[in-house]
């Protein structure tokens, strides 16, 4: 009976034109990938605006979605205004240099960077630059170190206790020490980068280091014994062994470590910028909090959403990179 019914259905399906099937399939796809998130976001916005109306702070009513949107537009307008000011600044400087050359021919004119305030967009860029450079420095240290630890049992045993102790330390606890050490060590008359940038960067590096070392080491140590034997039978030299066997084999684990640490690093960076008043999104949030203007909460919410969005994009970016670089596609699925 059942069989007949299903057979009948199948026949029915076959009778329908092909485009109906296509439409159906797209419909399902739409519902599962677009409609779901849209419904979720709408519900969130609704809840947010209702909740916002019911929260009174000493800085006025809690900002709802529309207030935040207004602030986003304000921040953008400020950025554009600041860019115009910067252009005027450069023009004035040009004129001033020319005028000075007239009376002081020995003068070597130089163009100095704009001295105005950092806009929200500048701060985003600063934070991104900091997190990426700190992350790359960490990767350059952690991956070779992790490989060495993974390959040598002796090294693993001697380094492991140190890693285990330092791994759970919040990088924020390091911040004062990093600050002092950078101040003491980085002394140049014409600094290429600012101290605050280095402090934030090294804090990010410290934060990324441990998850990457641990994951790389585990990835290397857990390589299939047979693959190692293949390398032995082929008598691959040590460097080639690492390059041809160890590195590709541990790439999925290395990426897991990298994604993990990038996510943590982004969170820590924002906190470090708040704490140390180093340029970036964290400083933006803290400055707005201290300003205590009636726009402050809206601007902070705008920053929070931006931070979240960037964190999400960083993770997606790493995933994409992993898909692109790793042979093991299944490890890069979510």
């Amino acid at each position, binding site marked *: 009976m059942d069989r007949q019914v299903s057979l009948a259905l199948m026949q029915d399906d076959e009778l329908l034109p092909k485009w109906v099937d296509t439409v159906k399939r797209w419909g399902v796809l739409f519902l599962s990938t677009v409609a779901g998130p849209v419904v979720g976001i709408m519900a969130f916005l609704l809840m947010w605006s209702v909740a916002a109306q019911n929260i009174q702070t000493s800085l006025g009513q809690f900002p709802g979605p529309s207030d935040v949107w207004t602030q986003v537009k304000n921040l953008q307008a400020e950025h554009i205004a600041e860019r115009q000011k910067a252009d005027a600044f450069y023009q004035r400087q040009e004129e001033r240099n020319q005028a000075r050359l007239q009376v002081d021919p020995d003068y070597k004119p130089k163009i*100095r960077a704009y001295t105005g305030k950092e806009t929200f967009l500048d701060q985003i860029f600063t934070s991104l630059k900091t997190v990426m450079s700190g992350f790359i420095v960490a990767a350059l240290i952690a991956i070779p170190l992790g490989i060495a630890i993974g390959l040598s049992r002796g090294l693993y045993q001697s380094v492991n206790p140190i890693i285990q102790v330092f791994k759970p330390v919040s990088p924020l606890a390091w911040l004062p020490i990093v600050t002092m050490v950078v101040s003491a060590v980085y002394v140049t008359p014409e600094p290429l980068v600012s101290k605050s940038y280095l402090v934030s960067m090294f804090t990010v590096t410290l934060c990324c280091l441990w998850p990457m070392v641990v994951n790389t080491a585990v990835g290397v140590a857990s390589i299939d014994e047979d693959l190692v034997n293949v390398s032995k039978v082929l008598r691959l030299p040590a460097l080639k062994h690492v390059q041809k066997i160890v590195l590709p084999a541990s790439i999925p684990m290395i990426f897991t470590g990298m994604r993990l640490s990038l996510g943590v690093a982004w969170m820590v960076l924002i906190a470090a910028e708040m704490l140390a008043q180093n340029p970036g999104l964290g400083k933006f949030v803290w400055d707005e909090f201290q300003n*205590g203007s009636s726009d402050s909460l809206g601007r902070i919410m705008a920053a929070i959403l931006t931070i979240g969005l960037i964190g999400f994009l960083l993770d997606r970016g790493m995933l994409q990179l992993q898909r692109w670089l790793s042979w093991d596609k299944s490890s890069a699925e979510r």
Partner: protein
Amino acid sequence: MKYGRVVKWLGVLILLLSMPWRLGWSGEQLGFPEKEELTFGFIKLTDMAPIAIAYEKGYFEDEGLYVTVEAQANWKVLLDGVIDGRLDGAHMLAGQPLAATIGFGTEAHIITPFSMDLNGNGITVSNEIWKQMKANIPKRKDGKPVHPIKADALKPVVEKYKSEGKPFNMGMVFPVSTHNYELRYWLAAGGLHPGFYAPKKGDISGQIDADVLLSVTPPPQMPATLEAGTIYGYCVGEPWNQQAVFKGIGVPVITDYEIWKDNPEKVFGITAEFAEKYPNTTIRIVRALIRAAIWLDENNNANRPEAVKILSQSNYVGADYEVIANSMTGTFEYEKGDKRAVPDFNVFFRYHATYPFYSDAVWYLTQMRRWGQIPEHKTDDWYHQVANKVYRPDIYSKAAQSLIDEGLASKKDFPDFATEDGFKPPQSEFIDGIVFDGTKPNAYIEKFPIGLKAKQSL
């Protein structure tokens, strides 16, 4: 053709003639700045205005200076920044260059060639404390409290807390801040002991024998700390008193204008090394700041609304326009709705506000001695030597004179540099009526009923 050439030469001539105007007296006496790219620090307070105005009005650029202005987290970070060279100069508490030079806290030779303003602070208490204080304050006919309010009104409240075993905490912004000394002055004048420091014994909390326990909170965090109940009141610069009124979390009870009329407030601090290494830059900085101060006060504060608008930008003070305007435009709001005229709440230029008087330095040193931050007896000479080392009217005079010569400032607004000795005549307009004569610091210290006597040490 020939005609064209003449025009060209004429053009060059005109350009050359206009040069001193545009570059500022470049040729003969004042040279080009040795260092052109500078970073100045400030704390989010309205009295940083001269720096913001000098930047926004292009006065720094007129001097060939390219200045970056950076808000700092707190006074310690700011001072360390100037000392370690991260900052070239900063908006400082008057006590900071003095304390650094004599080695209370971080030791470094900091000088001040420019005094930034007079007055501008207030003391705010929480609503809860205000309710209890109010009963002790006489009322005017219209039912509003009579000002100035003395700490006598606070005394019974503190005593009640003390008898209940609850410590009475108040906030100030830095151990050597004007606010610390003003709050202490006000409390002591009302018979409340604010506590001694004893740095020789390692006690720098300043709470020995205290009726009221004072602790440090960065200015912008004052309202939030008060709201959280950690402190019952604070002494801070603007806009953080008016912010409490706007937020409805506290009531300012007195401004520093009423504690000491036209008291010196912030100074512009740089290292002695900087001034020595970059003399032209130093003079040019002072020139720009003097012009900004003139602009802030000229035409009877006519530019203040514009200044407020600039200060309310998020990179400067960042508070709402209304909050900053409240005190910057000649009024001050005490209890909500009790807005009174205080035309001299913020003075940036008039009354020779920007001239670094030695006597101002001596007053701060006497207060450091009074509360034990200077642990031992010092001779009158010592006070004057320190003042000489830190306050630099010589630099100020050069800058001001060059502005006068260029017609950018008028002679009558400045002291007569030829005869000025840097000591104001004895001042009597203190809340407790005690007269201050900067030439006799030890005699002044002796006059206070609460505080270390001239030869006393802990």
